[in-house]
Structure formats: C-alpha cells, structure tokens
C-alpha cells in the first residue's frame, strides 16, 4: 500500500516538475528565459519556506535586471519572514523607485524596517504617512489607476502641444505646395536645425507630413516633454509640497556638481501631502536631472547656497528619504523661491487641483 502511494506521489512530482520546467522556459513578463527561470525558482523556494535560498535567487534576478519591480516584491516578502530588515529597506526603496503607486502597500513595511535599523525619525515619518493612506482610503490599486489616467492625460497634453505649437499650414498655400520655395524651407529649418537636410526627401514630403506629431523630429517632442516636466503643473504631482525655511548645509570636502550636499530646511507649512518631520534634510541638487555635465569652471562655494532664513517652496516627488535625504522634484527645479509670484501660482494650482 505504501509503495503504491509513493509511486503515485513520485508520478505527481514528475509531472509537476515537467510542468514547471515548461512554465519556466517561457519568456514571461521578465522578457528573458533565464530571468524567468531564476524568478520562478525564487518563488518556489519562497513557497517551500526556504527563504534564505529564495532571497539569493531574487538578488540574482535583480543583478541581471534591476528594474523589474516583482523581483523586489519577492525579495521583500522573503526578507520580512527572515526579519532581514536591511534587505526589506533596500527592496521597498526600489519598489517605490520603480512604481510609487505601491506606497500604500509597503510604507508600513518600510517604517518597520527603519525602526529595526534604528532610524527612528524616518520610521516615524513613514508610519505616519502609512496612517494617512488608511485614513484617506488611498490604496495602491487606486494610485495605479490614477497614474494610468495621468499618463494618458499627459500624453494628450503633449500631443496637443505638438499639434498647436506650429500649426499646419493650409495645403492651398502656394509656398507649401512647393517645398523648395524659400518660405517653406525656412519653416523646415526652424523646426530642426540640427537635422541633416535632404533636399530629395524634402521634395517628396508634403509640409503637412512634416508638422504631423508622429513625423516630427524626436528632439522637438523631447523638448516639449522637458518643458512640461519643468513646470508647476508637473511639479504639482509631487507627493509633498512644502513651504520651508533654509537653515544650512553639511560642509564636507567632497561637494561636487554631481555630489551635492545635504541641506537642512525647516518646514513652515505643508501645502500638500503627508505630515513630515519639521526638520527637513534635502539633497541639494545643483542642476536638472538631464544636465549632468558640469559647466566649465564650475566650482562649489558657499555663495551658491541660499541665504539662511530664506523661504522656499520645496517639491518632493516621493516623500521617502534616500541616504537620509529627500530628493526634490526634477533636481534643482524642485526648490523654488517662495516669493509672492511663485506662492500665488502654487496656491492657485493647488486650489484648482483640489477642486477637481
């Protein structure tokens, strides 16, 4: 009897192993057979309770592709069971980096990890944020939906801007009918001076085609996206918007263009977002994210820093610290002087958005 049972179990095991093999051979969401195999193995190990081995597999997968959020979620779950708080913290930070909409799900875990790591102030701030998510009934599911609709709207705005910045001339105009005419040529060169001019192509292309968003040079689209990113409308989507007073910065020897200091602000008012500790450490970026090349002869001096006591509007895209500092929206753009004009602008936008 026992032998029959063992035989049945063996057969079942064999068939499931085969099924697993074929499953792990699929490319899956990871986009790679090898990665899917590693990931499937990690999940299986996790299910079997072999958390340490599962953690190793998740880390292996992360080493191959550090931008796949599910690897970090797997690592997080296995690390929580092992009470491996530094791995929990690492996993959550990356989950938020890749998909901030997961914040309602994992901010408590992050707070707990920070508590166990002895980072009490950061833990407290995160746990309070987690409470506001519950109070306001904010779920990851809702945020994912909102993010999708925002994305769609942004895409719509960009498409509209592309269509309206230089409206398509009417086809009846004689100058457009003949692209080789001086007027037509000038408009083409205005669009993209850097693009190589191919007279043959120009002759074949109608002006309407040139102005069509899908056919416009990539650089123009990028410019418009960048312009949009560095606007108050885009900055308004930051998780936290604060009115804060600049207090000073950490004076270290290795302050560089791409290695900014930690600056200290004191929150005077929360314009938007969860409550944060009044003392606000900020990564004081000197540039926008795209401008990583330092201007010639750039050198840090304390004159670059704001006047202590001055008031600033601080936009924080994700209200989570990295290396003990909050990162501002779009680097240096996320710090705006709190003058009347800027304050009026931001209050107006906040009012409008809350009305919606």
């Amino acid at each position, binding site marked *: 009897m026992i032998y029959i049972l063992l035989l049945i179990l063996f057969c079942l095991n064999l068939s499931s192993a085969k099924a697993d093999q074929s499953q792990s051979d699929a490319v899956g969401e990871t986009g790679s057979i090898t990665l899917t195999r590693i990931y499937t193995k990690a999940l299986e190990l996790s299910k079997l309770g072999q958390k340490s081995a599962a953690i190793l597999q998740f880390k292996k997968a992360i080493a191959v592709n550090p931008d796949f959020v599910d690897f970090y979620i797997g690592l997080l779950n296995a690390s929580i069971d092992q009470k491996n708080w530094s791995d929990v913290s690492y996993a959550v930070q990356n989950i938020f980096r890749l998909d901030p909409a997961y914040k309602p799900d994992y901010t*408590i875990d992050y707070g707990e990890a920070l*508590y166990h790591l002895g980072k*009490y102030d950061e*833990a*407290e701030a995160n*746990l*309070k944020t*987690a*409470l506001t998510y*519950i109070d306001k009934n904010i779920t990851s599911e809702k945020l994912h939906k909102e993010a999708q609709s925002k994305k769609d709207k942004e895409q719509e705005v960009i498409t509209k801007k592309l269509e309206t910045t230089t409206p398509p001339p009417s086809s009846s105009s004689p100058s457009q009918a003949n692209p080789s005419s001086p007027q037509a040529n000038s408009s083409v060169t205005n669009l993209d001076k850097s693009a190589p001019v191919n007279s043959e192509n120009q002759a074949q292309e109608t002006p309407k085609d040139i102005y069509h968003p899908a056919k416009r040079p990539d650089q123009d689209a990028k410019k418009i996206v960048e312009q949009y990113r560095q606007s108050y409308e885009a900055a308004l989507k930051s998780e936290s918007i604060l009115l804060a007073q600049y207090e000073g910065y950490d004076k270290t020897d290795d302050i560089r263009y791409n290695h900014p200091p930690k600056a200290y602000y004191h929150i005077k008012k929360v314009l938007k977002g969860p409550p944060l500790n009044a003392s606000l450490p900020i990564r004081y970026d000197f540039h926008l994210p795209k401008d990583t090349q330092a201007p010639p002869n750039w050198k840090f001096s304390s004159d670059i820093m704001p006047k202590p006591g001055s008031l600033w509007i601080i936009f924080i895209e994700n209200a989570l610290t990295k290396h003990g500092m909050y990162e501002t929206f779009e680097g240096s753009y996320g710090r705006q002087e709190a003058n009347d004009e800027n304050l009026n602008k931001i209050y107006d936008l906040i009012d409008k958005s809350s009305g919606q």
Partner: protein
Amino acid sequence: MKNKIVYLFLIVFSLSVTNASAGESESDLNKRVRIHDLLLKIYLAKHQNKQAVAEYQTLLKLSPNNPALEYAYANYLYKYGNVKESIAHYRKAFECAPDNADYAAKLGSILFYAKDYDGAVSAYTNACRIGGSRFQPQLNSALQYQASIRAAKNAAAAAAARKSSDDSDN
C-alpha cells in the same frame, strides 16, 4: 489549553466586532494596530512619554480587552509612578485573562506595596488558585499583614470604646 483557545477566540471575536462597528475592513484595522504598535516602540525607545501614553491609549481603543496590552500599559504607568491608574489596568488585564496566575500575582504585589492588604490577599488567593503553591509565600505574608492591621484596628477600636465608656462614667 482549552481556556487559552476560548480566550483567543474571544479576542478575535471582540476585534471583529469593534472592527465591524467602525466600518473599517479588518486588514485596515490590523494595519492600524501594527502602525501604532511600531510608533509606541519608537516613542518608548526615544523616551517620549507623552507620545507613548497616547499610543497606548490608541492601541487600547483599537484592540480593547487585550490583556497583554493592558498589562504592558499597567507596567509602564507603574514605572512612571502612576500607581492608581496602573492598578486599574492590572485589574483589567486579569479580568481579560482570568486564567493567568502571573497577572493575578502582579496585581497582588502592586496592591501589597500600595498597602491595600485586603486587595493583595484576594489577588494572591486567585494567583494560588490558578497557579498553585508558587505564590503561597506572597499570600502568607499578605495574610500576616492583613491580620496585624486588623488586630491593630481592633485594638484601636477597643481603646476608643474604653475611653468613651470612661468618659461617660465620669
């Protein structure tokens, strides 16, 4: 063991009732409890007493009739000198877990140090009933104190009676 299961069931039941009354999903309630528990630990570690007390009170509201929590809060209050309130929470802890001899004995010792010997005897008697003879020495000393206090009271009453009868004779 049976008692423990019944007691666990009661806790889960009471949690689900409060939960339903608050109109909140169970997972949200659990999340709140977890968050406030962590905040409490943070404030205790940072010695922020005012915030810690607020967190204890929030947790007691979120999970009423939780004997371990009542007991921990009572210990905390006693540590910071709030004896009267701590006794109330030790009593509540024992009421919520009437099969826990340690809770009864702790209540007995606090009452003993507060010189409430009748209360101490009653609590230690409960501890002995549940936990056996390991609390007998404490019960005996409480009984001795109770007896000596009673004897002193009786002597004082007799002296007072004697004095009043002498006064009336004169």
